[in-house]
């Protein structure tokens, strides 16, 4: 432990180990960083821990550590080529199975069948709106203790520390409703048209068009 200057604070080995990861991240205030630098000058063990931890990060970050199974690249290329050639970007994975689903629905005599194939969850609030024209694959975030999904970075996410990302389609299927702030444009275009998501996720949700208008 070193205290070369009275106005510089000193740290012990335990404190150094506790902060060593933040030290390597550059995520420390200047005073603590300076104190740790002082400590490393005289403590051989902590210096060794620092160098070893740095080596660990350097070794694992090397792409050679990421081995893929033989033929992985070739199989990926084949699958991507097959799937992207036939479809337009923004509409690929869904259209692949939407076409047969739509055909089935027509043969069976209407959208009733499509409705029976999907599970719909009750809306969480009488004021909740299902949203329209939300791209099914759009990535949205939900937090652990709320039932609303948001555009990532929305200011109104309830518990930003515990969010997970999923697609809009999954969020709707799991009973989440769009945030009236960041997803507003999807609420206001309710009557504008029939969205892919609206028809495929739940016909029940489509029936709530009348709730349009924002909050």
């Amino acid at each position, binding site marked *: 432990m070193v205290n070369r200057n009275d106005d510089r604070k000193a740290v012990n080995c335990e404190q150094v180990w506790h902060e060593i*990861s933040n030290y390597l991240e550059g995520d420390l205030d200047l005073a603590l960083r300076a104190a740790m630098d002082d400590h490393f000058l005289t403590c051989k063990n902590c210096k060794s821990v620092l160098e070893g931890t740095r080596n660990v990060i350097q070794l694992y970050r090397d792409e050679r550590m990421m*081995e893929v199974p033989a033929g992985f690249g070739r199989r990926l290329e084949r699958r991507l080529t097959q799937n992207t050639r036939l479809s337009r970007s923004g509409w690929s994975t869904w259209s692949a199975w939407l076409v047969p689903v739509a055909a089935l629905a027509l043969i069976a005599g209407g959208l009733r069948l499509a409705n029976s194939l999907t599970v719909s969850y009750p809306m969480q609030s009488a004021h909740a709106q299902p949203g329209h024209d939300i791209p099914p694959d759009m990535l949205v975030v939900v937090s652990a203790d709320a039932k609303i999904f948001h555009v990532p970075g929305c200011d109104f996410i309830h518990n930003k520390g515990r969010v997970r990302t999923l697609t809009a389609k*999954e969020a709707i299927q799991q009973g989440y409703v769009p945030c009236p702030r960041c997803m507003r444009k999807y609420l206001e275009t309710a009557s504008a048209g029939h969205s892919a998501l609206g028809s495929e996720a739940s016909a029940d949700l489509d029936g709530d068009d009348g709730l349009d208008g924002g909050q």
Partner: protein
Amino acid sequence: MEQLRFHAHRLEEKSRVLRGGRRDEMAEPIVAVQNPEQRATHEQALIASVQRGQNELFYELVRPYERRVYAAAFAILRNETDAEDAAQEAMLKAFANIRQFRAESRFSTWLIQITVNEALMRRRRERTVVMEGIDDRREEEMDYAPREFADWREIPSEALERKEVRQKLAQALASLDRKYREVFMLRDMEQLNIQETAEALGISVASVKTRLLRARLMLRDLLAGGWEQGWFSHLPFEKGNKPW
């Protein structure tokens, strides 16, 4: 020196887009390449082209990241077949959503986040998840003290050319608990930042930092002995002489 090498590595990663042509399954050696801006611009141009409907360029766009995507899926699913399928599916989701990609985030980060989401969704679906709740908190409150103080100086990058070294590192990583392994994987291997790692896994920033610290220190303890025994330099690893 370390910083230079790190910089060179990042440049090399970006440069793959420009070089075109097929890349081997094995990674190429680290080479410093000129003109990173030009390469970044090329990636942006590729993204814009695919967004406008030039679908055939999509594989060229994602090819530099195929290893990282697979590794992220494997870290979560721990099964080669599942990881490969999840990686392919994640790429297709990225393609389907390419118009929603905004230039303010890194393309690689966006791709990895989609992959993590896909892999986590599959794991939830398989119901193989053991709930981690109270245990998490108890463990993360305890400080981890290093046990190994072997002098472990700079490691030659060539060490990674040797398969047994890569295997030792992979074994050490696989021996960590899932929560430590996943955070370490996303932050230190996939190079997401702390916030992005937290968002991808749906945990707090504080948890990421705590788990990262433990993961790094545990790996250092597991591997520091290997340095003393010389298997990072030139000596072959001898049978029955395990460093951990």
